[in-house]
């Protein structure tokens, strides 16, 4: 632990202070407007629209790496803390209440979903990489299937050879009934993401319990199988974590674009109704 504040800590403190400051200013302005009977919903509405367009530009930046548009990490900071500002403006704009009309509901739901998915995404991005480090070497996502197939092939070869080398079918049987399916596909994704390790313990115990039925060569095979189960479990962890790190973006980004379209529709309608009666 560094004695002085790290750059990241200072950055977090500064950005949080900026968001809190901006929110307080917004609350003050709203309060002032209310006491002087001004309707500033158009102001907050357009501010929100502008903010969300600005936030969406981050996606554009990620897609145009060939231009010197600043570092993506700076953009991400603006995106995260700009997002919190958008939440504050949203709450001001909606009066922090639940929606009533159908269009309001249609806007409210994606906004909340985008906010939640973004928050979850940030949390996952900060937590899962560290946890992955405790689960074997980092494997490239695209290579996980190949690696799994290699492990499965080794386990299968061991099971087949066990019948020949040990003169008993105990291991081959166990492999057939339990392990074969385990090695074929990714398993226990939810358990991995919640940090539950019971399945691995159970499997290891089962393998351990077979030791009494086999000879010395069988012990060796069981030990290796046990190692392979653990390696495969780590691989499953990598797969679950990396899938989650991809999945939240598949929710967050399309929803955000959908939200933008709905906001545009909402703005047009709001203006139409404002000038309509005249």
């Amino acid at each position, binding site marked *: 632990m560094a004695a002085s504040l790290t750059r990241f800590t200072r950055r977090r403190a500064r950005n949080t202070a900026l968001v809190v400051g901006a929110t307080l200013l917004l609350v003050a302005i709203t309060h002032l407007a209310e006491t002087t009977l001004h309707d500033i919903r158009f102001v907050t509405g357009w501010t929100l629209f502008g903010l969300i367009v600005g936030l969406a530009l981050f996606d554009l930046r990620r897609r145009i790496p*060939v*231009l*010197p548009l*600043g570092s993506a*990490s700076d953009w*991400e900071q603006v995106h995260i803390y700009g997002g919190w500002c958008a939440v504050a403006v949203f709450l001001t704009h909606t009066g922090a209440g639940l929606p009533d009309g159908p269009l309001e509901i249609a806007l409210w739901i994606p906004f909340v979903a985008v906010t939640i998915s973004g928050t979850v995404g940030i949390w996952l991005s900060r937590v899962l990489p560290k946890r992955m480090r405790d689960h074997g070497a*980092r494997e490239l996502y695209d290579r996980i299937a190949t690696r799994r197939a290699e492990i499965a092939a080794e386990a299968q070869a061991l099971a087949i050879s066990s019948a020949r080398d040990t003169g008993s079918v105990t291991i081959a049987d166990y492999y057939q009934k339990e392990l074969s399916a385990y090695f074929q596909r990714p398993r226990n994704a939810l358990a991995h993401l919640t940090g539950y390790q019971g399945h691995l313990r159970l499997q290891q115990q089962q393998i351990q319990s077979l030791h009494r039925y086999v000879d010395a060569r069988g012990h060796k095979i069981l030990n290796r199988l046990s190692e392979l189960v653990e390696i495969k479990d780590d691989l499953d962890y990598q797969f679950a974590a990396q899938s989650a790190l991809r999945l939240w973006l598949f929710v967050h980004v399309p929803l955000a674009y959908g939200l933008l379209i709905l906001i545009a529709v909402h703005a047009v309608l709001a203006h139409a109704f404002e000038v309509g009666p005249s």
Partner: protein
Amino acid sequence: MSAETTAISRPRRWDNPFDPDLSTADVERILAAPVFRDLDPNRFPPGQSLPDIVRNDARINRYQRGDIVVLEGDYGNSVFVILSGKVNVLYGYLPEIGRPPRRARRPFWNALAQLWRNSREIETRTLSPSARAVHMRANRGRAYLPDIERVIAEHSVTPLEHGDMFGEISALSRGPRTATVFADTDCELIELRWQGLRDLRARDPDLRERVDHLHRTRSLLAHLSESPLFAHLDEATIALVAQEIRFENHGTQELFPTGELPTESGGSLAGEPLIAEEGSLTDDLIMIRAGFARVTEHLDHGNRTVGYLKNNDVFGLEEIVRQWRGNGSVPLRNSLRAIGYLDILRVPAVVMERYVLPTMPEHLLPVAADTDIRATPVWKRDESATGIEQPLVDFLIDERIINGTQSMVIDLDRCTGCDDCVKACAATHDGNPRFVRQGPSHDDVMIANACMHCVDAVCLIGCPTGAIHRDLSSGDVHINDDTCIGCGTCSRSCPYGNIVMVEIADKAGTVITDRETGAAIRRATKCDLCAGQLGGPACQRACPNDALVRLDMSNPGEMVAWLHR
């Protein structure tokens, strides 16, 4: 789908001579010139005759009085022999002629257009017969010393004339030029590129000895003039000191002498010859001239790595100063070992005491070290002298990452695996990523398989055409795709496996083949630090999680700052 295949003649070593306009008369002139006329043509086999080497790897350059031939700090791998006229060598003074413009950056719209112009197929090439062949000619343009009389009057210069050779230090050490050379009169110089010099040295032992002797004596002077420890001495004293200095070469050319990574830290020292042992008498000051050295201290039954030394670092200075200050004989506090090959200079302690220390500015004298360190329990000594924690420093040395000036370091605690870095790399390289987001790792630090643009780029040694070369001013290692003949020598020599040989395809995606044998044509590819791109390496800019950085390992402070960010 295209049924046609593109077939070409397999590119060969001398498809692109150093100077395509070199005439037969010029070749004969070179062969009759000093140095070359002493070579024995019978030592060269028919396919690689002496005239062939000269015709393809040499050229004659003409300069006017005041023209700069080589500039200190530039990278270059040619040697020069004076054919006519005179030149002057200037040490330790960098004339203000302006640095050459950086590699031309593409215009903004051109960069943007990459987004849709990038090929859909992998590793496609447009084969143009007028390929930029003479890449080595991409000199700095004509650079000129504006005030030649004043420079000669105010700075000490060493004149060289007809038949003299220079440039061998950079050629042999693959480092930057150690001095500036400018034309004293109008002159003609033979320039022999590294590929030619390498072959001549290999076949002619007399030339080898001649070049190596020049290298030893001149690099000694260059080294002394660069070192702040000797900067306060006058020329006569430097000459006296130089006479007493001994050269030594240690270790092997291989960075990994056993061909494998060391398995555990005790074993890692096995292939690293001991140069100076802890506890022995401090007889010499050791100066590192080239390569890397490991500094260790005994700890229980093993050795703990305290740090590493590189070019221009010294070992034993503190002990020598304490001896000189009257502390009797002070034994060495640490041991020194060669990592891979190591060239050192030994300056005897008596020479230091007599000529150097008495007049050395106080601020250069090392402060007495914290002698209590040994009283600190082992488990508490968690940082080496580099400021990097001990296991990480062991890892960086054991894996030879210390060679990198642009190592791609990834913080596994922050890397989410989004691959934005890889996509950015592909987007800037016609759809082909030039690194793999995997590599050796220690705890949360991973060194990705991307070219590290090494201090000692051993990949440069064997290339037959000079396609892989250093950028003249930045020293970054680039591959000229047009002159790469796909032999794979560089890829086999890179100890880190950071050069990938690829099969090239035409625009339709069909692999281009050799007309004669039908075999695929290959090219060497690697990270080029996004040369010519706007904004520098795209990988680093693209990481949204602050997880990826390019670090210079010769400066541990950079690593420390990044680790504690």
